[in-house]
């Protein structure tokens, strides 16, 4: 079984976010980088599927030279190959990103590498476009299941579940297929020290993607801003267990304690 997992390098935000001077990027001078949580789980899922079924896994990203770090992190937990579609660091819109991934998959096919399963994150943590996997699916004529939190592969068929209305929806498609996963499908492992060392020595296959010229493009980013938040001071209801009556008064007042 041959699996391709697509990831995106994003800043590791936690507390407050600040913007660059031209308000086009997050100020990343003091931030580390990672991949989106959904994609961390997609990577783990690829490793588990190959462990269970045999075959090979490949990680692909479109991003700057520094995104090699994220590819090595994927190889450190057991991904076999890594492909970097190297950009100058500018953001590519979701249409252009999908087109570049499609080109890369076609180039792989031309070199004799066929994938049974293409894994994506449901949406990137930073841009949150919700469309790259679907655009790739339409371009390649593959079925695509989104929002997946449980995946089973058996006899060339993928059975996937996603949460809906407190319960689950079940989908089933024949391979080859695209599955966009959500965090929660698994608990990603930490890389081992030998894993990191092995990943360090592995080659990263690089190419320069060609931006597509015709057809749709966008959305085209103009600038970023921080949302205006109504930040106030909390009313302190009390300290420790003594605050309980004041808390219950509040719950009665807002009508949640009928």
């Amino acid at each position, binding site marked *: 079984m041959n699996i391709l997992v697509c990831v995106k390098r994003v800043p590791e935000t936690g507390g407050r976010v600040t913007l660059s001077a031209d308000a086009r990027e997050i100020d990343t001078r003091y931030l580390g980088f990672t991949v989106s949580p959904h994609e961390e789980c997609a990577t783990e899922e690829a490793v588990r599927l190959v462990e269970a079924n045999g075959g090979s896994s490949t990680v692909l990203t479109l991003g700057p030279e520094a995104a090699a770090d994220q590819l090595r992190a994927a190889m450190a937990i057991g991904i076999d190959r890594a492909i970097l579609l190297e950009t100058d660091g500018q953001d590519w819109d979701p249409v252009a990103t*999908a087109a570049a991934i499609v080109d890369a998959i076609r180039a792989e096919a031309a070199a004799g590498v066929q994938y049974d399963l293409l894994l994506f994150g449901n949406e990137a943590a930073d841009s949150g476009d*919700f469309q790259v996997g679907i655009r790739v699916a*339409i371009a390649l004529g593959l079925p695509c299941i989104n*929002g997946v939190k449980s995946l089973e592969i058996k006899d060339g068929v993928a059975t996937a579940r996603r949460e809906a209305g407190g319960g689950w929806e079940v989908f089933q498609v024949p391979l080859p297929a695209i599955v966009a996963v959500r965090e929660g499908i698994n608990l990603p492992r930490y890389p081992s020290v030998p894993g990191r060392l092995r990943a360090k020595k592995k080659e990263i296959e690089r190419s320069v993607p060609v931006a597509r010229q015709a057809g749709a493009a966008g959305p085209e980013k103009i600038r*970023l801003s921080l949302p205006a938040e109504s930040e106030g001071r909390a009313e302190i209801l009390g300290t*420790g267990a003594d605050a*309980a009556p004041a808390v219950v008064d509040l*719950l009665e007042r*807002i009508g949640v304690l009928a």
Partner: protein
Amino acid sequence: MILTFVEQAAGRPDRSSLEALTFARRLAAAQGVPLGAVLFGPAAEVAAAVLGAYGVVEAHLVEPAGLDAYAPAVWGRSVAQLVGASPPTVVLAAGTDRGQEVLAYAAAMLDAPMAANCIDVRPGEPFEVTRQRWGGSLLEKARLDGPVRLLTVAEHVTQPEEAAVPTTVSISRFTPTLSEADLRVRVIGRVAPEPGKVSLADARVVVGGGRGVGGAEAFSELEELAGLLHGAVGVSRVVTSAGWRPHSQQVGQTGTRIAPDIYIACGISGAIQHIVGCKAAKAILVINTDREAPIMSRAAYAVIGDLHTVVPAVSAEIRRRQAL
């Protein structure tokens, strides 16, 4: 024409779709064009009939032959073909799982751009949208070009509001032309929610637990309080990453977005990824030992103290009053 994909269940339009329709009506008014809707599934006609209250003049009921179940490529194909039939300027949907998915299919099939989770739009040339990034902790102003623009409307931002003057809805039926490939992906089964369980997304009260809870066992205190309030337990990412609670309880950018009347956040410091998941709560009550925790700035109320003392005391107080 502006076309809005309206989700409905048992003949009632979903709240998120009413938010999207309200957003769409304002855009239609600004552009001076009529507002249309597209609906799928059983009872769609019942749901369509009530959309006049939101200013819809034209509703398309899509009836794919022999298919009742949700099938994203079929629904996307239907929207794409409706666009081809009478080109709207803008196609909208709610920023829900299905809204994002159906519009992304339609956009890919039409080779048109799509902007997800918009909170504002400035029509004209250039056509500019303001959309959420990072789950809403950052906003992006962007251009959306093309003969047809597709966008989803971020949930919990626009309040659903009926039109000043209701309209009469003209209903038409549409049968899409489908290929075998469109039919491959469809819901083949469902697992019903546990009976009697309050869903996190719909709960009026959510009791949240973070790192401060300290371990899997201690969640029983939060479960007890949530039970007394007929609410649900929600947790931060730290908690699910540690394996203390299942991911289905995670509140935040990569979990569930909640919008309760009150969110009782216990032992949660408040990373931005968590805040974007709970900021639609009408009020936040923080229970924390740390007065300086980042979540304090979002809270209306706070109790300073150890959650393991405060939460059982609150439960006991509720029981005491209920026994009176």
